[in-house]
């Protein structure tokens, strides 16, 4: 009797999700939590655009505006884009390499709960005296002396959620290196798996500098250290370096998996093998490498001098080369293919011109001398929204439609999907295209209002109208999701009919052990190969046998909860609250105590016995 098919009560389902270590359920948790934060970040964006729709507006105060833009950026990057990508990595990557789970299921759950509690902590700032207000980059010169606890929420919240991301990255790396099915060589891995691999490696080396930067800021603000206190010998440029040594690789951590999603979609719906597979892999690795060499292009106007600026400008432009390789490979994948225009393919198609525009302005701002003009204007705002929305968000929306059937066993409505696409696509260009010109006309970024008669009125109004389009698009997507889940029409293994990779060879959603027998992979696009050879599925690489599975655990939740509690203690410690220190200690005791329990309690997992698997198969046939 498999636990999989049992109907469960509501409480049992909640407990199941609180303790789960199954990568598919963790993916759903990431998708829900990331979706929630995406909506919050989106609401903040709407508030920004309402405030800026007309000159001299007083929809929000200047102080509140600072908080809103800070939280919009921070939420979208750390709490929406990253976890939504992690949702797809968790849901799909282990299936694509033919694994039964990730390498460290326990750590996978811990990563999610750390992210979740960090995100909740950060957003509680709205109710506890004000949100962070120094911008998402939180430059030390502004942040160190920011009043209230806003910046403390930023520092501690991101520290907790950053730890979750870091261990998530290690987990994916080990999974891909050690857990590939027989025959799944590196050069047969689907592109989404490859980009997950490279992005995870980047996470491993990019997040520790952020950890250190946040720690220094925490020490300065909460424990009286002087890293950024110039009068005491400190230096605020250290923060800028540490932040961008993390921050620039971070944007490639976001965009590479997005490239991976689009690579899957292009080849699936062109019904053609991805053009230039090996050059795609090479370009991915090269972008991952170069991504670490360019951080100072965010600091051209800081005053590092012409030599540093020139080196970083050239390095930045070099990244255009592997990215260009990718663009052409996608175009050539469609060339001569039998293209099917599904909703994911709409997004993929629209992504190419949108992202290329972001790339072109990227080369413009990379030109150090010219950047002195663009710096801190709406031109930069337009540029990074073109790459992040035009790249990452379009990929997330495409991936949602593409993998929804695999994750939930139901198919999102195609008509509604296409309406969402058109509204979002038009709204996106309406919002951000004009912002290039607003920047060139002299509108600085991060201003809370502007005066009439400066030629900025029409542009800002157009931009705000575009934001309304995107909001409606997201609402329709939500409606689509609810309708689809209410109707609950189940689909088969390969609902798009053109699936190429291993995830489409097993049921939707897959059983909790994924593969009854590990598949034998005989080439790139393993499932497609077998279909073309006239077979129903993959050849098993092993006889039916016992399957080893990990136990569920509540400990990840407790470890994360402990840090969440400790963060409050650390933060209110500066206000001389008598309860702060005990709270800090209690929180840390919960965290380290839970870790100790995890260490000393044996956890061998359990086995699904061969007989159960055979019986289940008979049951399915009867």
């Amino acid at each position, binding site marked *: 009797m498999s636990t999989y098919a049992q109907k469960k009560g509501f409480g049992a389902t909640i407990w199941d999700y609180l303790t789960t270590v199954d990568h598919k359920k963790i993916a759903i948790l990431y998708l829900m939590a990331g979706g929630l934060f995406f909506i919050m970040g989106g609401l903040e964006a709407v508030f920004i655009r309402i405030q800026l729709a007309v000159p001299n507006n007083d929809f929000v105060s200047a102080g509140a505006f600072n908080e809103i833009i800070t939280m919009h950026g921070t939420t979208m990057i750390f709490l929406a884009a990253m976890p939504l990508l992690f949702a797809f990595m968790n849901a799909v990557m282990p299936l694509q390499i033919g694994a039964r789970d990730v*390498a460290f299921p326990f750590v996978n759950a811990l990563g999610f709960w750390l992210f979740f509690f960090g995100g909740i902590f950060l957003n509680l700032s709205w109710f506890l005296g004000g949100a962070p207000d120094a911008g998402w980059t939180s430059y030390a010169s502004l942040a160190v002396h920011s009043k209230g606890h806003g910046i403390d929420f930023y520092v501690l919240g991101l520290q907790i959620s950053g730890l979750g991301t870091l261990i998530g990255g290690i987990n994916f790396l080990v999974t891909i290196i*050690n857990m590939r099915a027989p025959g799944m060589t590196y050069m047969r891995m689907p592109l989404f798996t490859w980009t997950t691999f490279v992005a995870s490696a980047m996470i*491993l080396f990019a997040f520790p500098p952020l950890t250190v930067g946040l*720690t220094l800021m925490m020490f300065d603000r909460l424990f009286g250290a002087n*890293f950024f206190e110039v009068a*005491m*010998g400190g230096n605020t440029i250290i923060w800028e370096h540490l932040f961008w040594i993390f921050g620039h690789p971070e944007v490639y951590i976001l965009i590479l998996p997005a490239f991976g999603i689009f690579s899957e979609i292009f080849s699936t719906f062109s019904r053609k093998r991805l053009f230039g597979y090996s050059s795609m892999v090479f370009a991915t690795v090269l972008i991952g490498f170069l991504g670490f060499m360019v951080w100072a292009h965010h600091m051209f106007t800081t005053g590092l001098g012409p030599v540093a600026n020139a080196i970083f400008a050239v390095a930045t432009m070099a990244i255009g080369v592997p990215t260009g390789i990718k663009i052409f490979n996608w175009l050539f994948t469609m060339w001569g293919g039998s293209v099917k225009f599904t909703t994911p393919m709409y997004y993929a198609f629209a992504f190419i011109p949108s992202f290329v525009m972001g790339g072109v302005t990227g080369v413009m701002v990379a030109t150090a001398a010219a950047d002195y003009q663009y710096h801190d204007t709406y031109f930069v705002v337009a540029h990074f929204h073109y790459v992040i929305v035009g790249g990452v968000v379009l990929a997330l929306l495409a991936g949602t439609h593409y993998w929804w059937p695999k994750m939930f066993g139901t198919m999102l409505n195609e008509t509604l999907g296409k309406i969402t696409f058109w509204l979002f696509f038009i709204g996106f260009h309406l919002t951000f295209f004009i912002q290039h010109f607003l920047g060139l006309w002299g509108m600085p970024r991060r201003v809370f209002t502007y005066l009439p008669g400066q030629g900025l009125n029409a542009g800002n109004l157009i931009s705000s109208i575009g934001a309304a389009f995107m909001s409606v698009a997201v609402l329709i997507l939500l409606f689509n999701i609810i309708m689809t889940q209410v109707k609950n029409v189940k689909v088969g293994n390969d609902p798009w009919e053109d699936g190429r990779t291993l995830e489409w060879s097993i049921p939707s959603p897959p059983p909790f052990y994924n593969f009854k027998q590990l598949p034998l992979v005989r080439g790139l696009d393993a499932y497609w190969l077998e279909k073309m050879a006239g077979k129903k599925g993959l050849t098993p690489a092993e006889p039916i046998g016992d399957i080893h599975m990990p136990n569920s655990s509540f400990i990840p939740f407790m470890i994360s909860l402990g840090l969440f509690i400790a963060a409050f203690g650390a933060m209110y410690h500066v206000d001389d609250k008598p309860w702060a220190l005990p709270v800090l200690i209690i929180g840390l005791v919960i965290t380290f105590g839970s870790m100790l329990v995890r260490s000393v309690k044996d956890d*061998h997992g359990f086995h699904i016995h061969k007989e159960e698997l055979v019986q289940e198969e008979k049951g399915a046939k009867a």
Partner: protein
Amino acid sequence: MQAEEKLTYETWPASPERSTLEAKNKFLGFWLFLGGETVLFASLFATYLALKDKVPDSSHHLAKDIFELPLTLTATMLLLTSSLTSVYAMYHMKNFAFKKMMVWLSITVLLGLGFLGLEIYEFNHYVHEFHHTFTSSAFASAFYSLVGFHGAHVTFGLGWILALMFRNYKRGLNLYNAPKFYVASLYWHFIDVVWVFIFTVVYLMGMVG
């Protein structure tokens, strides 16, 4: 091979830290984690170098005034030796000699405790002799953060090794706990390597001015 199997000296594999899939994952995952830790300490080193001797005014002591070779050299020797004794422990682990492994781990822990004691004495000494406190200058903040982060790692490592020793005191070695001992010793080596850099960059380079 299964993690729960009862093994003897004859059936004990040559590399018990990598003989099951779980062990292989743990082994690789821990190496990758150490890669991340390396970047973490690199960032702290960079911060320290940028803020070395950056003090508000001339009443504050600089690196060349406060560091003394005898103390830090003794601490260095203790930690380096503890790294060697943890190698002996792993040698015996690979030979299924549980008791000998425990003896060498105990020596490792004692040496580590000695190092930690010296570090606490050292910090205390700086605070009282030179008013070199965490909050006195950017230099002091950077110094205590870098060396203190290392000290926190030593403390965590000691707790970890002790927890493993107590947990497995009665049941001896198996393929489930052998990788745990192994990665704990990897961690201990890493701490040692970081200290080599701290000794060079902070203390030796600090003393010559």
